[in-house]
């Protein structure tokens, strides 16, 4: 599966334009990166929050220059002022979501004088490789796949985080998250957002009208699907895996959810590390479960056509038939809420809402939660970059971002749950912090990039679109696993 919140929100309009823009930026980036490195030769080691703050200073405008933002700057008094410095950020989050990012660090920019220049690309996974190998890396990349993070570390391009980031990581996140931001035991990147994948979108109104109740076990969900199919003589589930160059990722989520539910967290972890191969009987069995669910010709693809149409339906479009009553359920992550048209009411008594994709067997895992997130990875270790990195790892930034706009959840435990205004965000946060939860990061994000954002997407697309056999899909993916 794949993507974290940002990628998830890609918009079709931009998908193709991105490479072009990126090409232009390659040119443009040359001039700007030169400028910024020139000024950055000073002591790089000092971390921002541990740096000596001006003793007894009451305002943050210690720099002496005319600082207009006096009001909210108390919270930023630990961050030394570095007026005129620019930190470039690169991620897969596109407008309008990236506007919320810009909003979230507006105060930080005002109070510290550091300019944060964010750039989003819909071809992020491919472009980051191109830029880093081309010597034009961003200062900080928001990498949604730990597999890609690993690749970047192997290229020798990633800088170690300052001590303050490590301290925040230990204080505010549970240990699992630290492993996800580490490569071979060395911690590199703190998480930014978290997202919840184990959700099913549905229409509360339609369910109520037809007298259906939200299923609480996997078996219930299957019974309900069969019942809806007979009751309505129509399709039940809708889905779409089209996503430009990332086509296929939503289908990898389906398998991951099933593996976690059918065989539990340990098998899942071993599968991620390729100790359990795709050709393993357990994974093969899980793929068959997926085939019985999302490739069931009687159940999919509601509102679009046959099973194969899943491959040509963009994931953005996939859930729209829920609003017109043509589709009953869609398995998709929390961020999908943003895809519904403006004016759609999301909530327990709204037009659409989500329920937790139920467990299969409580003895295997009681509350199986699959999620994702992205990690702030630094490619430069100038003081201003480290300062931004530190800020992004604080509950302060997470809270600012949550307040900027809904549709964004943090696994940062320092965040007060009451700041969530959106019911889906609150629902996601509830499961992400459930003590009984078996939380696993998106497997395809953890696998080596050649598989997790390469062959697996391709082969799964062929599985859905061309009816390629489960055995062949497994063979191709196992074959693409990098050796040593």
């Amino acid at each position, binding site marked *: 599966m794949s993507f974290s919140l940002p990628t998830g929100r890609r918009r079709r309009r931009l998908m193709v334009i991105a490479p072009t823009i990126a090409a232009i930026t390659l040119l443009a980036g040359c001039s700007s990166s030169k400028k910024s490195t020139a000024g950055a030769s000073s002591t790089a080691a000092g971390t921002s929050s541990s740096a000596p703050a001006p003793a007894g200073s009451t305002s943050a405008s210690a720099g002496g220059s005319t600082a207009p933002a006096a009001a909210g700057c108390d919270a930023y008094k630990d961050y030394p002022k570095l007026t005129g410095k620019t930190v470039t950020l690169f991620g897969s989050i596109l407008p309008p979501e990236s506007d919320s990012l*810009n909003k979230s660090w507006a105060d930080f920019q005002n109070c510290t004088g550091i300019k944060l220049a964010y750039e989003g690309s819909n071809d992020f996974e491919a472009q980051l*490789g191109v830029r880093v190998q081309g010597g034009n890396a961003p200062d900080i990349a928001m990498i949604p796949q730990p597999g890609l993070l690993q690749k970047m570390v192997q290229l020798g391009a990633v800088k170690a985080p300052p001590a303050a980031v490590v301290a925040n990581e230990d204080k505010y996140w549970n240990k699992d998250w630290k492993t996800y931001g580490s490569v071979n035991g060395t911690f590199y990147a703190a998480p930014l957002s978290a997202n919840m994948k184990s959700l099913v979108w549905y229409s509360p109104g339609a369910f109520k009208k037809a007298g259906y109740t939200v299923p609480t076990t996997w078996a219930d969900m299957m019974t309900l699907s069969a019942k809806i199919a007979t009751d309505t003589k129509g399709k039940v589930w809708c889905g779409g895996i089209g996503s430009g160059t990332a*086509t296929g990722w939503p289908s990898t989520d389906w398998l991951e959810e099933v593996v976690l539910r059918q065989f539990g967290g340990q098998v899942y972890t071993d599968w991620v590390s390729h100790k359990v191969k795709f050709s393993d009987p357990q994974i093969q069995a899980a793929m068959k479960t997926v085939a019985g669910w999302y490739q069931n010709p009687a159940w999919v693809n509601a509102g679009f056509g046959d099973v194969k*149409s899943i491959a040509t339906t963009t994931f953005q479009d996939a859930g729209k038939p829920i609003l017109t009553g043509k589709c009953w359920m869609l398995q998709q992550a929390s961020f999908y809420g943003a895809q519904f048209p403006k004016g759609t009411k999301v909530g327990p008594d709204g037009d659409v809402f989500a329920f937790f994709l139920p467990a299969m067997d409580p003895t295997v895992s009681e509350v199986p939660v699959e999620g994702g997130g992205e990690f702030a990875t630094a490619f430069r270790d100038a003081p201003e970059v480290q300062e931004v990195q530190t800020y992004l790892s604080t509950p302060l930034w997470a809270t600012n971002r949550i307040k900027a706009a809904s549709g964004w959840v943090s696994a940062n435990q320092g965040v007060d749950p009451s700041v969530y205004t959106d019911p889906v965000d609150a629902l996601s946060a509830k499961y992400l912090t459930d003590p009984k939860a078996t939380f696993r990061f998106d497997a395809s994000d953890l696998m080596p990039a050649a598989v997790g954002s*390469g062959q697996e997407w391709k082969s799964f697309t062929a599985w859905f679109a061309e009816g390629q056999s489960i055995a062949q899909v497994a063979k191709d993916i196992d074959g693409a696993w990098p050796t040593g």
Partner: protein
Amino acid sequence: MEAALQGLASSMLVPASTFSDSAAKIGNVLEVVAVFFAVVLLVFYVAGKASGKLEKPVAIVVFLVPAVLLLLIGLVIPAIRTFYYSFYGATSAKSVGLDNYKWAFKTPAIQTVLKNTLLWIVIAPVLATALGLTIALMVDRMKRQAVVKSLIFMPMVISFVGASIIWNFVYNYRDSSQPQIGLLSKVVITLGWKHPPNWILSSPLNNFLLMVIMIWIQTGFAMVVLSAALKSVPDEIIEAARVDGAHGFRLFSSVQIPMIRSTLVVVLTTIMIATLKVFDIVRTMTGGNFKTSVVANEMYNQTFVQFNNGHGSALAVILFLGVTPLVAYNVIQLRKERATR
């Protein structure tokens, strides 16, 4: 159609951040271009000061050195490196001999890629040229041919990516019981084909559907060049042929075609070279899925998605070897044409 229109309308609303982003980028590009021109002007100014004996050698150096240098940096050295890497493994660390080439010719998925590329270079250029020639002939004696020509030439102005987005909507699929947003589906349903296929999924048809985009773009180019060539055939020859009794198709095949043969070949090979490098259309329309990938796209995938330098380089070399004879032939024909003038 309504849904499609709504989609279009909403995509018009570009958020402010996108605008300021692009403004900065455009500014940067302009900056680079300005610096480039300043340097060029400076060099020319200094070189212009040279006189007498020095004049000629200085001129040669000034004109030749930048070109040779850029060619070396941008083309020759990368080409040699790519060739070298194609015998090395994924990380270019250890030699694997011919394994990458074996992989390219033995893996079924890559065989499909090579087969598709072959289909592309044969079909798209031939159809585009044939269509262009036909239109050039038909338009030749028409009133207001400028209007017709402009209309047909217009797709040439659209980038491959833009054209692909347009055609993506044309080929869009919805089950026939649902409201249609794809033009092609809607048209054939109206004509009575009740259950049209999911176009972009129907292999091998989808390859041809993608070629249509290329043909749509390149026909205008072929038409304009061939139309000019047809006009340059001297009237006396045509008249003489008419007097000898050649009309219609006979006149066309025995007189006009031989007269514009070299132009025809140049047009054909130019489109072929463009086709060999086709990447944007495939990447935009299908991302190389559904058995539609071509060498250029797969090369990019192997290098930048799978991070396999060896595979990527091997495909690049195969592509290069494929283009070279065409380029050579193209150049030879161009020279011949120049010689006859």
